């Protein structure tokens, strides 16, 4: 039978689920009595359990980082570019794990899960979670997998922030932190964009204060608007210009408000596809987790102090056209690490794709990422 997937793909993968019944105290003061985490793994854990790599996902992604769920899947996992045999996160060398964060809508316990107190979905009653809550839940997850120390914790965007949080909160449990297209905390502008996205959702008449499920509807208009706004911040002006310019679908103005420009059509299509499979309450939670992320806050708002006791080696990557989390933001992380005399390398990748560049097959990006991971692998055998 011919191999249906590309040779450098991990191929068919099956998500797994793990249940935790020890209550998890959350930063917000509430407690999750029990919870599930959905995760995927690629590659083989070696005998000394030293080659495990934890991949943290971004705002709206999930545990499906690589490979395919079905033979006829057209779309692969979200980081197929970087995970697979011979790729930067080489599944021939590493045992790669990716879990869906708490509060998500792709299998792990979140607003769509049944609230044990009521037997109905949590909806808006699901507690607001933080990045620190996630690392705490993932520490238990690591214990359950029997992994004392990750060879690396890796992530892009919000996932990169999670990797940073790991290095600060659980210094002995990782040897490397790879922090891509991230920031040490959100700027007022970042928070402002998130707030507009939240208001789009919350002001949708179908939102019903988050209890839309009870009304048998979904706040699709709000969720689509939120996604359109988010999507604009993921791309650069250049990337959008290159892709669509001012191109018109019908070649001429229609003097109305239907879709005319190609970019409008694209945004609507993206939003449509996203809203069909994502939960609005989860979107609200994830943007809050981003807004609250500020690991320096626990250390007199001094990032160098926060990172001082980290023992991991760091690899920080940014992209020149990323304006959501610009290179300057990555350099704040680098500066704090330099102040601490920590081992850190920093690559600034020339790319026109904007924030989304971290998901793209940019040759130099893949080269430096692979070179760094080779170093990680050498001491992980």
């Amino acid at each position, binding site marked *: 039978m011919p191999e249906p997937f590309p040779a450098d793909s991990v191929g068919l993968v099956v998500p797994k689920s793990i249940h935790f019944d020890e209550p998890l105290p959350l930063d917000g003061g509430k407690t999750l009595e029990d919870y599930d985490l959905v995760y995927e793994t690629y590659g083989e854990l070696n005998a000394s359990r030293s080659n495990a790599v934890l991949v943290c996902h971004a705002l709206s992604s999930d545990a499906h980082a690589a490979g395919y769920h079905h033979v006829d899947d057209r779309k692969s996992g979200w980081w197929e570019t970087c995970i697979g045999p011979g790729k930067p996160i080489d599944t021939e060398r590493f045992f790669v794990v990716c879990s869906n964060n708490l509060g998500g809508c792709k299998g792990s316990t979140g607003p769509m899960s049944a609230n044990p107190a009521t037997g109905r979905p949590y909806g808006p009653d699901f507690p607001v979670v933080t990045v620190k809550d996630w690392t705490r839940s993932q520490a238990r997850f690591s214990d359950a997998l029997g992994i004392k120390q990750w060879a690396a914790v890796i992530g892009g965007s919000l996932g990169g922030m999670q990797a940073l949080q790991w290095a600060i909160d659980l210094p002995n449990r990782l040897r490397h932190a790879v922090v891509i297209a991230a920031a040490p905390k959100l700027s007022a502008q970042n928070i402002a964009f998130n707030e507009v996205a939240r208001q789009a959702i919350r002001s949708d008449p179908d939102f019903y204060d988050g209890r839309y499920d009870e009304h048998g509807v979904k706040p699709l208009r709000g969720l689509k608007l939120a996604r359109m706004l988010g999507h604009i911040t993921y791309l650069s002006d250049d990337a959008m210009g290159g892709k669509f310019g001012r191109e018109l679908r019908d070649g001429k103005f229609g003097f109305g408000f239907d879709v005319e420009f190609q970019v409008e059509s694209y945004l609507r299509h993206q939003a449509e596809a996203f809203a069909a499979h994502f939960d609005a309450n989860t979107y609200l939670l994830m943007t809050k987790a981003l807004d609250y992320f500020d690991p320096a806050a626990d250390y007199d708002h001094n990032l160098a102090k926060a990172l001082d006791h980290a023992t991991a080696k760091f*690899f920080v990557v940014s992209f020149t056209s990323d304006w959501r989390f610009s290179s300057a933001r990555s*350099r704040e992380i*680098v*500066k704090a690490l*330099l*102040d601490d*005399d920590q*081992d*850190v*390398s*920093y*690559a*600034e990748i*020339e790319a026109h794709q904007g924030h989304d560049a971290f998901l793209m097959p940019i040759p*130099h990006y893949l*080269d*430096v990422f692979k*070179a*760094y991971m*080779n*170093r990680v692998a050498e001491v992980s055998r």
Partner: protein
Amino acid sequence: MALRPELEIISEWIAPGSRILDLGCGDGVLLKYLRDTRNVNGYGIEIDDQNVLQCIEAGVNIIQTDLDAGLSEFDADSFDYVVMSQTLQAVHYPDRVLDEMLRVGREGIVTFPNFGHWLARFQLAITGHMPVSNILPYDWYNSPNLHLCTVKDFEQLCTKKNIEILERTVVDQRHKRSLGMRFAPNLLGEIAIYRFRRGKKS
């Protein structure tokens, strides 16, 4: 590991166990050598993608940034030595870079091609062309070198900036030293190598 002879001279000047910053560190060979042989740690700074990649492959700490943008990421006195090999002449503001070197480091070490070498003088004076040689391999129109200087020029700048020169060596393109070079460094030396620090306040 074979080290460029010029880097060998630099590495002899660097005390074991110290911390260095290597500006324009290329493929990271000096950092790797010092780490492996002298327990010297630190960071390299590079702008070129290929060099950054090679540094990562070599496992040395590399920060990709433009030297002309300054060293603002580094606190004052955070290094024992700040090294700049064959790069001073290629930055936009060599004088400011020297200031920055001595702000973040206790001592600075630089190497540069000596434009006062007799062959360079000969080529310009007699043939009327900009000098091209093994150590100045570029044509005027494609050279990365923006601020070529002579041994005398460099020392004059040091005096002006109250920079104290601790050690000076000039070598030829095979990195050999000779008696002649000791007495007429600006005429016979092809590559100049200096170690220096902030001068005492007068």
